[in-house]
């Protein structure tokens, strides 16, 4: 197991960071979060095709770059630093991973190339209004209907669902329960009977939607009835990616807090010279480095195909979300009143932290998973 990045990975990080700093300033974030689509098409095209990030972890035979979880983690970490507004987590991570995990050879050949070059966008419709991402939360029924399937039910918390050209839908066969009968389907965004609506969220930098399916025709993705494990692996990899994004945001926000503590003067001293602030900052640094260490380890474990990845992914996700929230709350506190204003950027990170905390299940759920699926880690 590696505990450091290769020189190539370091260069990749610098390269992505430069792009994000140039294309995702907070002024830009503030502009895009006011829009319904929530992303800039030109920037996306650059990021997706010129940089090749959309297909970063898609094998080369499907038009991707053929990199793995570590590189995806690096990309997300850098995107998280600048709160990038783009369908990357939704399309390039969640949906793409689902197709890679659940799809048949022909599915992949058909679907992945367009996603790899960013020409098309996909979304993963997994959770439902109850807000659970595990198979137990899948209640949508897929009724067989001469070779095809008809979907009925509601999917919620669908990331980038409104801008997606195709939706990967998780549903279950009639009269099935638990992991049994879980299947994945592909639905075109303009399919008859599919109603889409944007949800109002705390974190306007992520676009969540609710999709209502009424007798919607769907094509199977991969093997019918046997998608539970593929979806779980999709969640594992996506949780690690999200943990990386959170770690990036926490790191950047922490840097902002330190900068302000060195700048702001009260009582004739910079506030960063008061132990109350200094010690808080030391604790935050520890939190951030621990969360980083967990996210990096998880990405490496994914690359190594660790058998207990579910436990490790849950560990990284829970660790990152607790840390991000602590850092966000503390950064507001260190800024004082100004940190609570709309003009100050801190709240953008605070809200991203709040949405990341419960997206793909909350920390309590992941701590439970950790214990349930814990192997013997070294």
């Amino acid at each position, binding site marked *: 197991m590696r505990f450091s990045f290769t020189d190539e990975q370091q260069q990749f990080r610098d390269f992505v960071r430069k792009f994000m700093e140039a294309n995702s300033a907070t002024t830009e974030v503030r502009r895009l979060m006011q829009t319904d689509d929530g992303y800039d098409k030109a920037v996306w095209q650059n990021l997706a095709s010129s940089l090749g990030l959309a297909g970063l972890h898609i094998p080369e035979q499907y038009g991707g770059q053929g990199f793995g979880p570590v590189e995806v983690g690096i990309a997300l970490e850098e995107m998280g630093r600048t709160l990038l507004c783009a369908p990357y987590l939704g399309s390039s991570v969640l949906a793409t991973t689902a197709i890679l995990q659940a799809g048949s050879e022909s599915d992949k050949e058909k679907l992945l190339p367009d996603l790899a070059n960013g020409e098309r966008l996909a979304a993963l419709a997994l959770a439902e209004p109850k807000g659970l991402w595990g198979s137990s939360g899948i209640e949508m029924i897929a009724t067989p209907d001469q070779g095809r399937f008809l979907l009925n039910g509601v999917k919620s918390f669908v990331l980038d669902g409104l801008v997606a050209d195709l939706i990967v839908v998780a549903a279950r066969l009639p009269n099935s329960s638990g992991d049994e009968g879980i299947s994945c389907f592909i639905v075109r965004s303009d399919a008859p009977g599919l109603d889409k609506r944007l949800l109002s*969220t705390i974190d306007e930098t992520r676009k969540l939607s609710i999709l209502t399916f009424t007798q919607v025709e769907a094509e199977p993705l991969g093997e019918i009835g046997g998608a539970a494990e593929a979806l779980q692996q999709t969640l594992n990899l996506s949780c690690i990616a999200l943990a990386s994004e959170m770690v990036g945001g926490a790191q950047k926000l922490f840097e902002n807090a330190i900068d302000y503590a060195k700048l702001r003067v009260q009582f004739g*001293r910079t506030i960063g010279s008061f132990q109350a602030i200094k010690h808080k900052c030391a604790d935050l640094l520890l939190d951030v480095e621990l969360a980083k260490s967990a996210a990096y380890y998880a990405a490496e474990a994914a690359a190594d195909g660790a058998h207990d990845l579910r436990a490790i992914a849950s560990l990284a996700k829970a660790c990152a979300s607790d840390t991000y929230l602590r850092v966000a709350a503390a950064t507001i*506190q260190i800024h004082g009143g100004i940190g609570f204003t*709309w003009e100050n950027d801190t709240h953008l990170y605070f809200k991203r932290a709040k949405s990341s905390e*419960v997206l793909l299940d909350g920390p309590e759920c992941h701590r439970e998973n950790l214990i349930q699926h814990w192997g013997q880690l070294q």
Partner: protein
Amino acid sequence: MSEENSVRDEVRQWLSENWDPDMPLVQWRNMLADSGWGVPGWPKQWYGRNLPVALVNAVQEEILNAGAVGVAQSGVRMLAAATLLEHATDFLKQKFLRRILTGEDNWCQLFSEPGSGSDLAGLTTRADLQGDNWNINGQKVWTTSAHHAQYGLLLTRTDWDVSKHQGLSYFVIEIGQVGVEVRPLRQMNGHASFNEVFMTDAVVPKDMLVGKLNQGWAVAMTTLANERRGADGLRQFSSGDAGEGSIFKELEAENKTAMEPYKWYPQRAGRADWMLERAKATGAIEDPVARQEIARALILHKSSQWMARRAREAQLLGRPQGPEGSLGKLASSNVARAAAHVHTLISGADSMLSKEDGPVNGLIAEILISVPAVSIAGGTDEIQRNIISERVLGLPKEPRTDTDRPFRDVPRNITS
């Protein structure tokens, strides 16, 4: 006891003879002022009766029982009144106190500045004497209700060559003048309940000085002490008293305006009172882990309330106030954070959703994005801990590097 009863009889008697729910609000409040029953704790010569706290409460109880309306209380006006009573000239008391009680004037507090939040005495808004007037330049912030206030309690620097606390002066400033610009300040939760106030060659007549020149710090301390007294965690958010009669229409309108900036404060406090209800509604109550977290927050919430009750009861009994009195604000920060954590746990993924899509029509979301203010507004937790450790525990102050030299020479923020 017998004295209390006689007072109660007297006020009941007076109310039965004078209270009329169809009287114009201002007229009624003028009667309260003239009779001394409106603010019985105030001095006799200033609309009061010099009564001790215990009897004041008895009087207020009687007025409440009679369903009668009291003097205007909302907003900053009572801080203004307390400050003027203690430090102002008779001219200023004459000019302002009655109209404070009748509610004819609204007030705001012009203390905090962008460059001096925790360090109030570091403020840099300057007042320079020109003829018979003071010329005011500078910026204030976190001002509640400045946009509909007639007067402001203004703290300024009038001497830059003495140490920071020695060069401040306290004035009453008229808001509706050319030199004063009031702008709303938007917060991270979307509300704009505070203002920024820009003063550019604003004018304050000499006779609007409160207390002595360059002794404004002591005056400001009076204002802040009264503000703290108001914040014992038990404050109710009036939703406008009900009742029959035209006077209640006027009152309702008054309360509506006055309470507007505070409508998110219950969410800022974390809504610990909603936890169990929400846990039952969502089914989270079935989750042992959620029950533990709710219990933790509930323990904080209830013990904080009980602590506040202890403080209040000691006060009523006229006993020396114990530490519990200074701890309310710090406690409320802890309660709010714990409650916000619990509400996230209870609402799960729904806690991301806001407005009509969010639980309790978006109010859960409002809790989550409002709670961060509770440990900052009105004195950060860090400042509270300084105050508690120094004033209550008697721990030594840190070595100061800002009070030992002329303010001119003290490092400070470059304010835009």
